[in-house]
């Protein structure tokens, strides 16, 4: 198990490679991106697009902490660690107080 966690740790350190892909996933454009693409923003899309009141680390990036690749890479890695930690906590919360199951 320890070896698997170490492998995952290495993957997190390599995750900034995922920042290098140019562009956005299809259908995941923000309002500014749609405008740049020359799309008239549909009324409903405009209305619901910023529904979430408080996103902690929007798109795994905090431009206010420095725009350079390396500072963003650090934020990306921190995002990965935060996300991993929350995954583990949530999984254990979901099975909290569960009766021992054999095997």
């Amino acid at each position, binding site marked *: *198990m320890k*070896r*698997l*966690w170490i*492998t*995952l740790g290495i*993957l*997190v350190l390599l*995750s900034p*490679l*995922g*920042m*290098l*892909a*140019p*562009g*956005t*996933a*299809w*259908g*995941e454009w*923000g309002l500014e991106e749609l405008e740049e693409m020359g*799309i*008239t923003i*549909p*009324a*409903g*899309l*405009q*209305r*619901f*697009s*910023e*529904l*979430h009141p408080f*996103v*902690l*680390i*929007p*798109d*795994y990036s905090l431009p206010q902490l420095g725009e350079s690749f390396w500072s963003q890479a650090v934020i*990306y890695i921190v*995002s*990965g660690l*935060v*996300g*991993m930690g*929350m*995954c*583990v906590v*949530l*999984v*254990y919360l*979901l*099975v909290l107080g*569960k009766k*021992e*199951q*054999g*095997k």
Partner: protein
Amino acid sequence: MHIPDGYLSPQTCAVLAGGSAPFLIRAFIWIRRQLSSKAIPILALTTAMSFVIQMFNIPLPGGTTGHAVGGTLITALVGPWPAVIAVSVVLIIQALIFGDGGILSLGANILNMAVILPLVGYWLYRLMAGNSGIASARRITSVAVASYIAINLAALVAAVEFGIQPALFKDATGAPLYCPYGLSVAIPAMMIGHLAVAGVAEALFTGAAFWFVARSFPDRIRGS
């Protein structure tokens, strides 16, 4: 494949959330009643793994990006219902903390990536792997091929959800209210990238990771 808020009408979101709810409830009951205590650490690990692997954006033809999900890998390692929980947990964290995928559209994203993907992936994997040995070439190929088909099916369903919007929801002038692209744009745009690149990445990652666990920790794999 993480549909943001605003691209699907609230009605579509409600229907798709309603569609995913019974599966989530079933999965939650399953992990509370049936999941072996021994499997909990590996469920936590594979959930974290799915989160991390989704950060590896890959350039796709057409100037967009995609990524692996790891859902079929989790079904093969821990089981289909734990995989539904694992990917749902990842999607909830992505939406709430990182704004990756919407709040209204969370049910849609769960249906595509956390229900359809792992359950179809599991069924195909079991069908192809049969009773082959735990680290056999047949089993590793089966899990990889199953993951390829499953992620592409999830992408297709997402493309259909996007693509039906302009026909169903428009204002008085006929302008689209939500996703402006119809099926004829959405389906090729999503599928070319997933069939050619993201699906291949999912298959390679799934096959390699399954092989690694099967070789190093065969006793950790479900059913062993």
